[in-house]
């Protein structure tokens, strides 16, 4: 199943003009990413280091000094300002059609959620207060954040996540046919002998694109998915029902799962680790181990921003931490994830870090996998 750029009932109906605007934002971001950002490190050497040296009488050393030096480079500042502007324009370009078409979208979502013959389910927990370390930030500047839930029919967080995510990805030159679920399925085929799960969990599912793709690929598998926000999950559920696949969505915290021990034989997460802090990430990995059956497999996939060659590249990468609401970007990039997995109980010999080519497009993805003994 395609996960990007596909049609379903709860997407906003976009006018030709709105479609043009989204295309223009993609083109602007593609230009900034492909033609301007790659010059930042050279601009650091040509402009930032000499300016810092003139100011302080020595070269910058620490990450904080290097960050200060970057901001002395006019070329870097120009890119940074334009990139921030382009990121805000993502949300303008997708948010306008969502709020314009919201009544219709809510009606269609309500019908799908309340349909008598549903394939999956929606399990919201009104007693759960979404984790503030995620809920209180407009991560990647998504207005209202992941946990926005303004009324009992709210679906905006999910709609923004899916449509804004597509514009973001296309601007990063991620292929329209790429799929994070597809990457994990390929890993299961190639690295785990074609393992096919009977009961799986997708942690931090957001708008449910990967969860629905798993359900389509493994029609016999019981697919569960969780996230923190009711608005996100209503949308994910209606989306999955519209696509005709069975996914059971749950509102719960990744670091405190309400599932019994050994419930699943496959647990995955996609782009979750860079959205949560160290303590929550470690607790999430421990919970992953607990809910896995003996012999079960875990795959945590995320963005390929780890292992950059120099401290200057690392500080340049941290633009997202300071300007894009990605407060845990650097925490994730520098984390010893093998250590976390080992501490959770996974045998060291089963823990593997992967540098994976995309299913479609030139980008790469990071993943770490392991297997519970049994």
């Amino acid at each position, binding site marked *: 199943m395609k996960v990007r750029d596909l049609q379903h009932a709860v997407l906003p109906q976009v006018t030709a003009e709105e479609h*043009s*605007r989204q295309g223009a934002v993609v083109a602007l971001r593609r230009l900034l990413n492909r033609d301007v950002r790659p010059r930042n490190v050279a601009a650091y050497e040509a402009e930032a280091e000499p300016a810092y040296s003139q100011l302080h009488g020595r070269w910058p050393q620490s990450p904080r000094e290097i960050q200060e030096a970057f901001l002395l480079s006019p070329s870097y500042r120009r890119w940074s300002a334009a990139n921030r502007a382009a990121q805000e324009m993502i949300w303008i370009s997708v*948010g306008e059609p969502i709020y314009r*078409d*919201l009544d219709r979208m809510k009606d269609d979502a309500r019908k799908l959620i309340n349909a008598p013959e549903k394939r999956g389910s929606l399990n919201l927990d009104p007693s759960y207060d979404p984790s503030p370390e995620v809920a209180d930030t*407009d991560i990647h500047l998504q*207005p209202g954040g992941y946990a*926005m839930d303004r009324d009992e029919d709210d679906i*905006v967080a999910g709609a923004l996540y899916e449509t804004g995510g597509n514009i973001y990805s296309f601007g990063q030159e991620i292929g329209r046919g790429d799929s994070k679920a597809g990457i994990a399925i390929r890993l299961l085929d190639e690295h785990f002998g074609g393992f096919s799960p009977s009961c799986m969990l997708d942690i931090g599912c957001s708008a449910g694109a990967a969860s629905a793709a798993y359900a389509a690929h493994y029609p016999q598998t019981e697919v569960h998915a969780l996230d923190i926000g009711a608005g996100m999950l209503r949308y994910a559920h209606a989306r999955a029902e519209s696509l005709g696949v069975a996914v059971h969505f749950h509102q719960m915290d990744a670091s405190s799962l309400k599932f019994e021990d050994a419930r699943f034989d496959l647990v995955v997460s996609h782009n979750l680790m860079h959205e949560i802090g160290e303590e929550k990430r470690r607790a999430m990995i421990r919970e992953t181990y607990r809910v896995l059956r003996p012999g079960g497999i875990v795959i945590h996939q995320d963005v390929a921003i780890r292992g950059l060659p120099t401290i200057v590249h690392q500080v340049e990468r941290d633009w997202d931490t300071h*300007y894009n609401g990605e407060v845990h970007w650097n925490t994730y990039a520098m984390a010893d994830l093998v250590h976390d997995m080992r501490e959770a109980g996974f045998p060291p010999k089963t823990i593997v870090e992967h540098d994976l080519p995309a299913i479609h497009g030139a980008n790469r993805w990071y993943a770490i996998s392991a297997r519970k003994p049994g």
Partner: protein
Amino acid sequence: MADPTGALAELIATARGGRPQSLACLEAEEVLNIALATLVELAVSNDRIDRLERLVAELSGRSVEDLREIRYEGEIAKERLAATDALLTRALRIMVDPRAQPRPSG
């Protein structure tokens, strides 16, 4: 169904957090934002013109390339040149307007 301006206002009202500055001058950064947003709107208008060209081509039985090759001479060309001059004057007014920032005396 909200109108586009209402939809934008509703979206903007939900956004949280600050807007960290990159350029040395905040005003310059705000102007850059306006310029980039205007650039995107220009692309939207170009798409609309393209759609109309294709429709006119279809209705007139001429090719889109033929339509795009139409060039006017004489009075029409002068009219277009005057319109372009006026557009450039509006867009670049800050560069041709002689008023300078008042400087403190003394």
